[in-house]
């Protein structure tokens, strides 16, 4: 089966205070369909940068990212936006919901930019929110929701366009442990439904409970790959 994403010798360098900072130094990996891959490492190890590059939010300094065989480096900004719109679902640590929009409007947002008609958007958003257990909070704004509920809205928004890969950057980082477990349960359930996840975390417990594979990154390089508890 084709890989969802294949990363080959990925390098990323930032210039900080006039000095080059190597964040990723030759990372190579592949994510298979239906997998949950956790990227573990301490702060600043490069795990978020790796997810951002795979998700098309950032561009590598060197190396290749193939999304179902297509090289992201060859895509211009418009095509990269189209890739994010149709192939990727992002879940952020800080939820990143638009505060002025209701839960439904936030979930509809990717479909709005994809040109999906309003009626279909509303139906799909309602179904997505229902699937994350928020069917009753559909017209609530983010400020009226708890952290866990906001993350459920973010997950509903990430799955709304049926992406081939869900990227979750510390999805439980801003939640208490009980709520975090609920979110992990939701992710597990979605994975059982066939969705592929790549999750960055520094919490070993999270990784072990959900991942099929755990990739340890240290100083921008893969230090170890181990089989997760979900395998």
């Amino acid at each position, binding site marked *: 089966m084709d890989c969802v994403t294949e990363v080959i010798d990925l390098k990323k360098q930032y210039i900080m205070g006039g000095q080059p900072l190597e964040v990723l130094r030759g990372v190579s990996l592949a994510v298979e369909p239906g997998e949950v891959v956790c990227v573990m490492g301490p702060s600043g190890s490069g795990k978020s940068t790796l997810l951002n590059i795979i998700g098309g*939010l950032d561009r590598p300094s060197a190396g290749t990212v193939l999304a179902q065989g297509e090289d992201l480096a060859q895509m211009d900004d418009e095509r990269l936006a189209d890739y994010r*719109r149709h192939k990727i679902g*992002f879940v952020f640590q800080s939820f990143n919901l638009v505060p002025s929009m209701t839960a439904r409007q936030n979930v509809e947002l*990717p479909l*709005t930019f*994809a040109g999906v008609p*309003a009626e279909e958007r509303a139906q799909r958003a309602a179904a997505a929110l229902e699937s994350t257990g928020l069917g009753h909070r559909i017209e609530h704004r983010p400020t009226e929701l708890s952290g866990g509920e906001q993350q459920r809205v973010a997950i509903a928004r990430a799955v709304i366009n049926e992406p081939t890969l869900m990227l979750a950057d510390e999805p439980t980082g801003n939640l208490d442990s009980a709520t975090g477990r609920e979110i992990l349960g939701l992710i597990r359930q979605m994975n059982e439904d066939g969705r592929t996840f790549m999750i960055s975390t520094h919490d070993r417990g999270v990784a072990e409970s959900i991942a099929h594979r755990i990739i340890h990154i240290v100083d921008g390089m893969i230090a170890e790959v181990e089989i997760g508890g979900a395998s």
Partner: protein
Amino acid sequence: MRPRDLSALIFSNLRRMKLRLALTSMGVVIGTTSIVLMVSLGIGLQRNIEQELGGMGPATHVTVMPAFTPGSMEMPTLDSQAISEIEEVTNVEAVMGQVWVETMGRAEFQRRDVHLSAMGVPMDKFEQFGYVVERGRLPRNENEIVLGARMPSMIADEGGFREDLTEDLLGGRLNVTFFEPVTEGAGGRPDEAELDLPAETTRRLTVVGILAPADMQVDSTAFVTIDAALEFNGVRSNRIAFPNVIAMADSPANVAAVEEELRALGYETFSASSLQEGMRVTFLIIQGVLGALGGISMLVAALGIANTMTMSIFERTREIGIMKAVGASGNQIKKVFLGEAAAIGLLGGTVGLLFSISTAAVANLVVQGLIATEAVGQQAGAAAVGTATQTAFFIIPVWLGVFALVFAAGVGLLAGILPAMRAANLDPLIALRHE
């Protein structure tokens, strides 16, 4: 992204910044109002002057005068030979000589003094020149007179009559006193004029008709036959010569060509049409200058929009990052912010246009009232008061309204270009980290 969704997103974003929207739009309101009122004033001035010029005769008429010979003391005139020559000019349909009755003194109707000015015209050509008898008929002899359309009301005003005089005047008699001519051969000038009128003589003229409204001069003039005019002026001759004649072009478009040919033949010409054409350019410049003055406030409004959009983008940087993360392209982001800027312009333009229309209406009423009061003070009569109440000094044609809206939206759009490009080019990761 569908246009409907784009509009919904734009208006939803604008609803979130009501106060800022109102303040920013206020600049556009002021700018639009300045431009619309300034240009409408220019249009009003032009329209009023064109109306005045229109009162000088129909658009196809050309007044032809003989050219002055330098050094000559003699007043040149146009004789029947000259009229024949003018009739031969391309695109000239007809030529008509006219003679002012210059000896007319006071006139009396039903024993009340009224003012009368009369002109002698060839009655066989009069209707060909577009003048229509609305009631009665044209004069057939020296004792008959036809009145211009406004004359019944003018006579009623001057004589202090309260009722409409049209019916009384038709078939009624005017007692007109004529004085001895002041200048030799005034009006019609024969080679051998004989001046033998007594110092003052009174004639009874029967009103046989009233003309349909034509132009300002004709409406306020009475007409007699050429023979009558010559007789009143004390001229007895078989060779009639006119100080000027009216040539009628076959269409207003050919007036300039007719004038050119007549000038080439050595005549002086004048027409309301050519005067209007000359003034049109002048008024275009005036409107441009007035519009540009108003445009200065629009420039300030544009800076206000640019400032508001820049601030808005700064405050919504994270939101832009979120939109990009979920798949919005740079172009889509650009359209959202350009749309917001254009909507601010359009909103301000709409309010400004409505404000301009109301201000123009009030200003017109006030000025008309002042002129009417002045006219009453000068006892200028109901006709003058009526004219004053019809005069508009601020005229906002449909094209100006449409232009104002398009211009305001365009200014908003232009002012939004740089901020929108900045938003479109934001790095999504930096935008997402923005607090």
